[in-house]
């Protein structure tokens, strides 16, 4: 049988032609024309994208920076070469499509996949991320281990998402992790990710040696990966799977936490040998990384894949274990001291520097907002039409992210709220679990409860969501990245949690009337459940999830007909959380008036609470909406101000003062075009300040209002 060596005798045929890269040549030509000849460059295009320059080249192809004129945004385009023929091209296209299906905040987004004109190369158009690679981020300044951990957890979530979609990264390393300027971490260069198909071998070529066909775990193709991050089984047997990714992830984690990789060598050869030996060194003595985290890293670096974590979900759980035990610790301490909020504050104050009054007010305010959202039943899911609105969960997270002297107090408050909301949701779950047609909703309530408190065994047992799905739900709850369908599902939960029968029916009708509403079967079940008695789901008592029952209950119901809040900070939490009583229409006006008085007296939080109550009774009460918008505006919360002012405008389109308010809020967040629209309408409606506002706008934007 002729060997390849024989082929050299047929010189010319064997050598073929010089390999060319037409796209790269085009770009180089463009640049040289401009440098050497001072010519304006001619655009190099791929599909509808304009190429701007080569960012880099890797094993499978080159990456270019590009511009999409249709959507007016920059992106990155990776051009993959591997098609010797149509099969190869088709395979690459499938890979690209698999990537495009992965939509996760921690995975670089794929916008488009296609074939370049020459028919041989596949291109993948991805988001262009403004940020640093992990390596650069680590080098930029010394990082505390919790921050490193948080960044790596985000990257880990991206990997988890890929694994759950059946993809394996195969080349995870710090160069493939981007820490965006927006704080979001994204994993990229899944260019090596191949769908791990255990049963079939992809396009088994007749050239492949017999040994290749026998190995069912590997996909055909070249072994690539970076020596320092490759798993031992990947080097020795070419086995690649999610556990190999886990290994690479932990190598990167080790490097990020300790400043050095665990397996070192002077060159490729030495490095590979070190990985194969798999003996990680002890951490540097000066390191402040806690032992439990070090153990997590070590486990992920186990030589035997079976000894590592079962999957990325378990690994991430383990990386976050201090968060949960910290909450438990604090709550435990609070119980022992007859936890009332005040007493817990007193104790922690004794041990820490003094937080300022402003900081304490902020904590109260955020807690009140959490309760306000909970009152609307927006625990985890925001309203469909306002997905950026606060949910109880996001407010709890806001509390937990308070820094400085007040962080302990804020955390305590957050812990209380978590338990409270979790208990409410569990109670709702229990309620519907028993009802006919309610099991699916119950499962969702339990899932929502687990978002607040992942340790609830009872809820864990009864929910149908996997740990991976719960992770995903928690992520989405964190950054409000729910799909429209999820929001609709969330509204069903909110509806079923409504305690006032009239409001429940109204919300149900509204939901079912939506063109994008739930499926008929779900809707029917919903309706059936709604017809019956409301659940006894109001939280009047404190949570009982922990060992001993808590003693004094936090300050609760004030008789709702008295629309005046006490003047100290504590009471804020109560009115909105009072027993279920509907304020009738006349009362709504009274509430608004009372709110005005509170606000004039400088008690903005009390005013806010009252206005939220008013809106519970009447969502479209223009005056209440506008008053709230004013409050938020004053508190420099411009986005909230925009939301409520917009609703006020929608409720009362002819009220020019609302338009001025909305325009001002837009102005503050530099949305000049939107501001202009509102000011012009106000002008048309005859508001006397409108003209001056438009002048100011013109000054700012250099435009002209005279059209």
């Amino acid at each position, binding site marked *: 049988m002729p*060997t*390849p*060596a024989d*082929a*050299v005798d047929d*010189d010319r045929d064997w*050598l*073929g*032609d*010089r*390999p060319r*890269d037409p796209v*790269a*040549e085009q770009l*180089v*030509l463009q*640049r*040289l*024309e401009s*440098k*050497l*000849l*001072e*010519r304006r460059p001619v655009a190099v295009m791929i599909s509808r994208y304009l190429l701007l320059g*080569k960012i880099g*080249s*890797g*094993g*499978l*192809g*080159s990456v270019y920076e590009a511009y999409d004129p249709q959507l007016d945004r920059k992106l990155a385009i990776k051009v993959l*070469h*591997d098609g*010797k023929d149509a099969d190869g091209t088709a395979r690459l296209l499938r890979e690209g499509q698999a990537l495009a299906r992965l939509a996760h905040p921690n995975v670089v987004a794929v916008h488009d996949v296609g074939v370049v004109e020459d028919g*041989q190369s596949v291109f993948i158009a991805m988001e262009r991320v403004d940020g640093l690679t992990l390596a650069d981020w680590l080098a930029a300044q010394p990082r505390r281990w919790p921050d490193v951990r948080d960044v790596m957890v985000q990257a880990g979530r991206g990997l988890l998402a890929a694994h759950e979609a059946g993809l394996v990264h195969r080349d995870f*390393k710090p160069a493939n992790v981007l820490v965006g300027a927006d704080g979001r971490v994204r994993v990229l260069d899944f260019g090596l990710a191949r769908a791990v198909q255990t049963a079939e071998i992809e396009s088994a070529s007749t050239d492949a*040696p017999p040994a*290749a066909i026998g*190995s069912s775990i590997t996909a055909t*193709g*070249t*072994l*690539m*990966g*970076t020596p*320092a991050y490759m798993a031992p089984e*990947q080097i*020795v*047997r*070419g086995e690649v799977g999610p556990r190999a990714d886990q290994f690479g992830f932990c190598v990167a984690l080790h490097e990020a936490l300790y400043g050095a990789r665990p397996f070192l*060598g*002077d*060159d*490729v*050869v*030495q*490095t*590979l*040998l070190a990985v*194969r030996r798999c003996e990680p060194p002890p951490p540097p003595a000066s390191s402040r990384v806690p032992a439990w985290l070090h153990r997590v890293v070590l486990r992920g670096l186990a030589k035997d894949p079976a000894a590592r974590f079962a999957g990325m979900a378990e690994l991430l759980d383990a990386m976050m274990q201090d968060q949960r035990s910290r909450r438990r610790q604090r709550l435990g301490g609070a119980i022992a001291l007859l936890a009332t909020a005040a007493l817990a504050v007193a104790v922690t104050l004794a041990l820490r520097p003094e937080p300022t009054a402003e900081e304490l007010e902020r904590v109260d305010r955020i807690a009140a907002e959490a309760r306000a959202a909970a009152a609307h039943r927006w625990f985890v899911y925001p309203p469909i039409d306002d997905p950026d609105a606060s949910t109880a969960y996001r407010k709890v997270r806001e509390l937990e992210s308070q820094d400085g002297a007040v962080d302990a107090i804020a955390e305590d408050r957050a812990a209380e709220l978590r338990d409270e909301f979790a208990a409410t949701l569990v109670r709702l779950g229990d309620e519907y679990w028993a009802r006919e047609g309610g099991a699916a909703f119950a499962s969702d309530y339990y899932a929502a409860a687990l978002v607040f408190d992942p340790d609830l065994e009872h809820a864990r047992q009864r929910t149908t969501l996997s740990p991976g799905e719960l992770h995903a739900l928690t992520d989405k709850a964190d950054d409000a990245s729910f799909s429209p369908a999820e929001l609709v599902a969330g509204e069903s939960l909110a509806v079923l949690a409504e305690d006032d029968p009239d409001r429940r029916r109204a919300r149900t009708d509204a939901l079912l009337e939506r063109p994008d509403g739930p499926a008929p079967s779900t809707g029917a079940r919903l309706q059936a459940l709604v017809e019956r008695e409301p659940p006894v789901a109001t939280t009047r008592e404190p949570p009982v999830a922990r060992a001993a029952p808590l003693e004094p209950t936090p300050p609760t119901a004030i008789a709702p007909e008295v629309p005046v809040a006490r003047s100290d900070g504590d009471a804020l939490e109560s009115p909105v959380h009072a027993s279920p009583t509907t304020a009738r229409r006349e009362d709504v006006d009274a509430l608004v008036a009372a709110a005005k008085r509170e606000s004039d007296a400088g008690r903005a939080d009390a005013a806010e609470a009252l206005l939220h109550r008013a809106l519970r009774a009447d969502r479209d009460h223009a005056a209440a909406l506008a008053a709230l918008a004013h409050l938020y505006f004053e508190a420099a919360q411009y986005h909230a101000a925009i939301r409520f002012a917009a609703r006020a405008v929608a409720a009362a389109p002819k009220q020019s003062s609302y338009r001025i308010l909305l325009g001002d809020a837009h102005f503050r967040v530099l949305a000049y075009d939107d501001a202009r629209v509102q000011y012009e309408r106000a002008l048309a409606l005859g508001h006397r300040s409108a003209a001056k506002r438009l002048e100011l706008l013109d000054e700012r934007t250099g435009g002209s209002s005279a059209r």
Partner: protein
Amino acid sequence: MEDDLALLQAWRRGERDAGSRLLRRHLGTVYGFFANKVVAEAAEELTQRTFETCVETRDQIYDGVTVRAYLLGIARNKLLQHHDEWRRRGSKAVQAGESLAGAMGPTASSIVARGDQQRLVLRALARLPLDFQVAVELFYWESLSVLEIAHVLAIAEGTVKSRLARARGMLKQAVAELDAEPALTDSTIRDLDKWIASMRRHVEGDDADAG
């Protein structure tokens, strides 16, 4: 051929149109020459330097030598200078933190092979000492005459012929080695030590044989 010469002369006189046409005709050749020997950024930069030199000097081009060969001669010089700079900086051939797929130090290729055959060709070529590799490329890929190759490599015509013959033998051997060596394919790595040993040879041999 005259056409090219006329264009070059016109460009040297400052006529940009001529420069543009010349650039378009020969960019592929010059860039391609660098692309399978150095990383992308270097390939572009060396290409630029090549064209800059060709328009700035007032060299005569010998009879029987095309502008294309002339350009490749300049290109080869630039490549040698580039390698010298690298050697002076004393960089290791491979950095463990970089991907295997593509980075082998200063000789890293920015060309991505299509398919196994082409990959094999490129790798075999890369194992030859530089001037042998260039000789083969110029003869087979660029179809330069022996006279032109002699000019580019600054050797006698007779030496070109013998070099080509020797190069063929070397290629055969390189291919045989590559074939025997457990290649960089995940499906065929069974014996890591043997592979590592051959990698080591390749890595060290690169520095020893060049030039």
